[in-house]
Structures are given as C-alpha cells and as structure tokens.
C-alpha cells in the first residue's frame, strides 16, 4: 500500500524533559520520524517542552511549539493547527499518556484528528496489566501468576494467594516508577501503598516473582498488511529483578537454541497481532526459567521504546524512521533498506558482531540514594559498544562509561598482580554479587580474581554461566598477561586485544605506560580493523558508512 493521500498535516508529540527513566532516546526517535515525514511531503507540527532537543531545531519540522506537554496545551495546538493526524508512538510514555488523555476528553473526535501508528484500544491493551494478561491468556501465552488491586486490602489478599516474593507493578507510570519487590508482608504493605499512589489510576498488579530468571527482549515491527518482522533480539546479562534500563544487555540473544528463540519469536508476533498494534514498533519482554525453560511473557510496549534506539544502532535498522513511514500507509516491502539500497526493509537484520549496552549510574551525585538495583530504573544514561566477541564489546562498553575504568578493572584490589583474599574481602564480594548494584559487573571480575568458581558466582547472581565464563576468560587473560609481563608474545597481546583490553588497561596490568604498550602493539603489527554495520552480515553491498573498530585480522 502506498502513502496515504488523505493526510496532509501530522502532529507529533515529543517526549519533554529528560528524566531518569526517559532520556534522549525519544529525541532520537522523534527526530527521525519528523525528518522522514517532512521529506515525504507531510506538514509536520511538533510539540515538545524541551528546547534542548534536536527535534526542536527549526529545520526539522514545519512548525514547532515549545510548550508544556499537557492535554490542555496540546488541545489548544490542535484547535489552532487542525492537524489531520496525531502520531503518538515516538515520544515515549509522556506522549502516549497525553494522547490517552486527549482521546478520553474527546478532543481527537471533536477536531477529527486521526491517531496513526497506534490506536487507543491497542495502547490500553498493551499498557493495562489486566487487559494485557487477558489478551495473552487468550492466545495461549504463559504469564507469571498475578492479581490486580485498587486498594491495600485487595493487594494483601492477592499477595497471600501468590506467596512471596512478589512484584508490585503500578499501571501507567514512567520508567517503572514505584515498581518493587516484596519478600514479606511487612515490606509488601509499604511498597503496595507507594505503588497505588504512583499510578495515574491507582492500580497495581501483584505478581509472582520471576526474579533470577533469564530475561529477553524482542523488537518487533508490523505493517498494515500484517507483515511482522523482528528487528533485534536482546538478552539481559542481569537476570529478572533488575530493570532492563539498569541491566547490562546484549544483542543478539546468546544462550537460546533456535527452537527456543523461534518459540519466542512466534509468541511476539502473536502478541503484537492480538494487542492490535497495526503499524510500527513494539518491544516485547520475556522471562525464561534457567532450569526448566518455562517461558513467560512479561510485558509489551506498544510504541518505540528505550530499547528501540539501542536496537536501531545495534542493527543499522532505523526503527523510528520506518515506524513513521508505516504509520502513513507504506508497507515494509515497499520501503527500501537505506544501507543496502537493493533490499527491502521487510527483512530481519542479521548481525555479525556482538553489541553490549552498559547502564551509567551517578549515585555519587545522589548521596542519599540507595545504590542497589531493582525493578525501578535508576541509571541516568548508557553506553553501547560493538565488538566481534562479547568480551571485547563488554570491555569497550565499560570504558565508555567515563568512570575511570578502562575495561573490566578491579574495584577491590589495587594491584591485579597482588591479589590478597581474606574472609572480609570474600564477604564483601559475595554481598556485592548477591544484591544487584551499580558496580556488580566489576565485582564479577573481582570474584574470579579472588578465585571463586562459576557455580558459586552463579548461585549468588543467577547470571547465565555463558556470561560468567566469558568474564572468567577476561580475567584469565589478565592473569596470563601478568605472568608473562616480562616476555609478552605477539599471540598473547593479540588475544588481549581481541578480548577488548585497552592499551591503558594493559599498561596498568603490565606496569608500563599507555604509549609504551601502544608502541609495542604497533611493533607487533597489531592494529584495529574497522568493520561495517550493514544489517546483513556482509551478504549484500552496504552504502552507509557506519563502522566499529575491532581486532580481527
């Protein structure tokens, strides 16, 4: 189906201020959408309260209103501009909530504004826990056991029925605000009360805890002809219990067989169809029991989400841009893939590298904040890295955080060559592994430095053994480097670079300097290679210059 001719003017709602839980990713997606719609000849009107965004740059849209994103203000803009359509799925939760209010007040009907890219029913079904649960049951998908509550008394009853630990999830909030885990009734009462208060509709879901299960996400797109494709698959290093925004995540999925992945893919497609997202992207989350493989669907975001920005950069597939085109009537097979030019956007990217996203925290700036991690998001940003191995991508990601760590360096031991382990050190490491926190990834490294084995660390963290083994390999390489400090072979240095060790990090390990390590490396002819992100694992010629560095020659 080609572009719709009955729509001339489109209103886009931006995401507003940058807050914890909602950062500039929605500026990224909104900007892509504005640009492509304008290119396509539509008149694009934007409302966004945040002038420090790309999308509010004068050349991006035809008209930009820098006004508060409230239903009242947007109604005034609608009355003045009389747009034909409203695209609410690219500005994150703020845009979606505002649109919901506009619809409820009858504003969209009154001014004959068509909501494109989503509809009220789909948003309600996706975001309202009870409706979502009913919908998933209808299509035969397994869910965690749960119950709805509108008052504290109701909540207590539900919790008793499910048994502890339980998760409390308020409906209609930002970034999982108010979501929490309760291990007993005492904790539960406090947290349930807080949850009810933070929900826009005083509604919470009390849910069977799947804490410690493996966590996965799929980025899915659908068009008006009901073509559905999976753009990116993501596996969380941190198991369930840590908010995805605070988790180290990896693309693509690493530890599922094809049979298990296809089951998840089928479930995602069934989910987006049942929820009724007619065009655009959705993010769907699953938990898998590590010993039995039981797969439950956790939630779906019927819009471009935080993970969409990551998935776009991770695969080279511009999700927001394509979502905007789908919203105005194009179908996936009609849109060309910008990178290959000759193949259509109706395909699933094949990637030939590993992508790691590492969250950035700033607990040092919030002295009273609790630095442990849970189901409420606390990170303020993230770094994304690409490597040919997970080890390389992880270490690149860690040094991109700009927290004075140049890879998986120690937080416990001053000198990696002089590891002294006593009971106090062990107790500290174990405690830091057990309770998720901002520095846990570094304590994982230190756990291996201190001689803990994979099974012990697994029992404390429930982090999949595949990730643990890879971290162990990094530390193993560090140990080898220390041992062979005096007589470093080209093979060992090559391995270290392939494992993502930076020159600066190597300098510390080898008691040398960054420039000396760099000179040594060059003398051994070890230089980075630049490889292309091309959506197709080199199968087709790529035209977009989007590269990552790696040691792989």
């Amino acid at each position, binding site marked *: 189906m080609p572009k719709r001719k009955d729509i001339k003017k489109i209103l886009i709602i931006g995401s507003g201020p940058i807050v914890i839980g909602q950062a500039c990713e929605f500026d990224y997606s909104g900007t892509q959408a504005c640009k492509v719609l304008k290119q396509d000849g539509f008149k694009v009107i934007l409302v966004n309260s945040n002038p420090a965004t790309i999308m509010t740059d004068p050349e991006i849209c035809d008209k930009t209103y820098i006004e508060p994103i409230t239903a009242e203000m947007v109604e005034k803009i609608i009355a003045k501009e009389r747009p034909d359509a409203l695209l609410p799925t690219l500005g994150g939760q703020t845009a979606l909530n505002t649109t919901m209010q506009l619809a409820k007040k009858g504003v969209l009907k009154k001014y004959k504004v068509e909501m494109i890219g989503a509809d009220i029913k789909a948003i309600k079904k996706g975001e309202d826990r009870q409706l979502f649960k009913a919908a998933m049951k209808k299509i035969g998908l397994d869910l965690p056991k749960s119950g709805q509550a509108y008052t504290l008394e109701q909540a207590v009853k539900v919790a008793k029925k499910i048994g502890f630990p339980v998760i409390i999830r308020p409906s209609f909030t930002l970034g999982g605000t108010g979501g929490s885990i309760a291990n007993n009734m005492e904790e539960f009462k406090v947290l349930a009360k807080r949850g009810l208060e933070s929900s826009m509709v005083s509604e919470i879901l009390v849910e069977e805890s799947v804490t410690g299960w493996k966590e996965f996400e799929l980025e899915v797109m659908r068009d008006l*002809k*009901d*073509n559905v*494709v*999976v753009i990116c*698959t993501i596996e969380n290093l941190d198991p369930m219990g840590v908010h995805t925004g605070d988790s180290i995540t990896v693309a*693509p*999925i*690493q*530890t*599922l*067989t*094809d*049979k*298990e*992945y*296809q089951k998840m*893919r*089928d479930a995602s497609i069934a989910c987006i169809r049942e929820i009724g997202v007619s065009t655009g992207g959705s993010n769907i989350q699953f938990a898998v029991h*590590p*010993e*039995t*493989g039981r797969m439950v669907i956790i939630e779906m975001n019927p819009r471009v989400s935080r993970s969409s920005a990551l998935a776009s950069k991770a695969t080279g597939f511009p999700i927001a841009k394509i979502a905007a085109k789908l919203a105005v009537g194009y179908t*996936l*097979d009609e849109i060309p893939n910008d990178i290959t030019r*000759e*193949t*259509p956007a*109706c*395909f*699933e*990217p*094949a*990637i*030939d*590298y*590993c992508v790691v996203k590492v969250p950035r925290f700033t607990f040092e700036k919030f002295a009273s904040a609790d630095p442990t991690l849970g189901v409420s998001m606390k990170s303020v940003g993230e770094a994304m890295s690409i490597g*040919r*191995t*997970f080890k390389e991508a992880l270490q690149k990601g860690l040094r991109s955080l700009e927290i004075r760590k140049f890879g998986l360096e120690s937080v416990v031991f001053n000198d990696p060559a002089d590891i002294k382990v006593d009971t106090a050190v062990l107790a500290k490491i174990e405690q830091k592994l057990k309770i998720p926190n901002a520095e846990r990834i570094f304590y994982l490294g230190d756990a291996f430095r201190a001689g803990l084995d994979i099974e012990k660390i697994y029992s404390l963290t429930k982090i*999949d*053994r*595949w990730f643990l*083994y890879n971290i162990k*390999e990094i530390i193993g390489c560090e140990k080898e480097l220390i041992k062979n400090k005096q007589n470093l072979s080209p093979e060992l240095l090559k391995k270290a670079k392939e494992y993502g060790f930076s020159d600066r990090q190597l300098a510390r390990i080898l008691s040398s300097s960054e420039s000396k390590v760099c000179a040594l490396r060059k003398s051994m002819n070890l230089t980075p*290679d630049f*490889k292309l992100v091309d959506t*197709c*694992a*080199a*199968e*087709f010629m790529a035209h977009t210059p989007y590269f990552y560095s790696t040691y*792989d*020659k």
Partner: protein
Amino acid sequence: MNAILALEDGTIFKGSSFGASGERYGEVVFNTSMSGYQEIITDPSYRGQIVTMTYPLIGNYGVNLEDVESCKPFVEGFVVREYSKIASNWRSRDSLGDYLAKNNILGIEGIDTRELTLHIRQKGALKAVLSTEDLNEKSLVKKTKESPGLVGIDLVKEVVCKKPYAWNKKGKYKVVAIDCGIKLNMLRILESKNCKITVVPAGTSSRDILEMEPDGLLLSNGPGDPAALPYLVNTVRELLEKLPIFGICLGHQILGQAFGGKTFKLKFGHHGANHPVKDLRSGRVSITSQNHGFCVDIDSMNKKEIELTHVNLNDGTSEGLRHKKLPIFSVQFHPEASPGPRDAEYLFAEFVSLMKKH
C-alpha cells in the same frame, strides 16, 4: 591445534581447530543465521560444503538431543570466529566441539569470518580445504584446485536412507517422502498434520512408490547440483499426473526440471534465516529459512502450465511455483524452518488440503 582453511584462489585463513582433526574438502559457503548451528550442521543438504557462520559466537548453547535434522552432522567442515568453550542451556547434553569430534567433523575457530564472507560474496562460492594435518599453504591450495567440487556431482546418493521406512504409524493422509537428504522437521510437521509418512530413498522407482498407494508425495531437500540427478527427474516426471506433489528446495529444483525447466548456479547462494519471500497470491511476506546454491530458471518453463507463486524480495529470484491444473507445487525455501522463522509453515497445510481434494 593449528588448522588452515585454504581456498582454490590461494586465499589462506589460519586458525585453531575444534572438533575432529584431519583434512576435508568442500565448497565454502556462509550462513547468516544467528542461531541454529545444530540444525545447520545436521542438515544433509550441506554435504560437500564447508560452512562458515557469519555470527561470530558459536557453540554457546551446546548441542542437545532434539534439535537434529538428521542422524548426524553432514557439513564437511565448520568455520567460526569464536567457539564457545562453555555450553550453557538447560537442554544441552554435549559441547559442539565434542559433538563434532565424535562425528569426525573438523571445526576451525579464530577466523575473520566477515573477511571470508566478503571474499565469498565477491568471488562466489569457492572450493576449499580444511586441514589440521597438512599446514603447508602451497600444497593445500594445489590440492583444493584439484578437488572435484560440487558441479555435476550426485551427492544425494551419499546421504539418503538405505531402504524405505515408516516414519510414524498413524495418520489420515498417506504420504510418501522421497528422501534426497531430508530434514526431519518436514516429517515432524506432516506428522502433526495427521499424515502417515513412509520415507523412501531417492532412486526408488515410480512403480514402487505408486504401489504404496500414497495420497501425496513430498520431494525433499538435498545436497549438491540438481542437474546431476536425471534418474530422480525421470521418476518424478512419471508421477506428475498421478498424485499431489509438494517439493521443497532440491525437490523444487527436481520438479522444475520434470516440468522441462532448467536450473542455474547462484553466485554464492542463499544460506540464512532472514530472507523475505513474497507470496504473490496473497501479497504477504514470510521471513524464510533458506539453503540453496542453485535456482530454477523460471523463464525456461512453460508459462501456460506453470505459475510463479513466490519471489525473493532481496534479489528477485524465483522461490516457488505451481502447476495451473495439476495439484503440484513447490518452494525453493524451507517452510519447515529449523533453523529459522516458521512464517511459511502454512504451506504444509496447503499440501494436506490438496491431498484432501484429490
């Protein structure tokens, strides 16, 4: 242990071995699936081929008892960037390396598989040798050049079952599946759709097949050059007007020839799990699993009889055909998936409904 992959054009890739040691020849191809290596190595269609995975981290979830597409691995060699020494999955029973070693298959890791893939994309599929025994580059290249390759060679006879067998006992529709190197998931899906299947080796005569009184015939996938199998084309030609036929991959190419069409070799083939294929009847796109180096030339066929039903959106090649009057259709891709998306599984239901009607 050190290992070398040498290509016929003199390109050398050095790495270390996992799996068995030895020396094996084959055509080197790349597969872009990010999961499903167990299904890939056990797919008999890979006989005669050394497969490189474009996804760099392979072996992560080990090998299990269920996800096999035949009784053993058939690839001549397996090339990866990084082989995972840990197998982490609740169903895993063995590591990939041990599994390959037990089945005497060579694996090589530490290869810049993207570089290799780019090379294949530019030069086309090349003859290659994978060795842990002979590490002399010159001698390897020489031996590769002298190796027979794939074109014109009947590889089907090396992978088929020895004699007919019943796959299952119960089912409303009696299907005979001609095994040219069949992937088991075709049989699993037909079984789930109320079919009782007898598998017969390619080479079984049309008379023997008709004596079984089947309701329908499945022509399976298989390895190598479809033009090297005139006996199979003849058998199928004799069966054209006798019963409903569903052809998959090599089976599609055999049918194409039985209808008088020709096949040609693709530069580097389609091997992956993300190929968009449009069903021209419904307009719907399926993301499909593919594994073929040859293609049916649709222009060489009689358009009065044969209708093009599916087309690959990436390169426009033909992906499916059907006879306008007879209950016969076939596809180039793999509706049985395994590995890959199950979007096209609806074709098995179409086959069953053809059997119902005829």
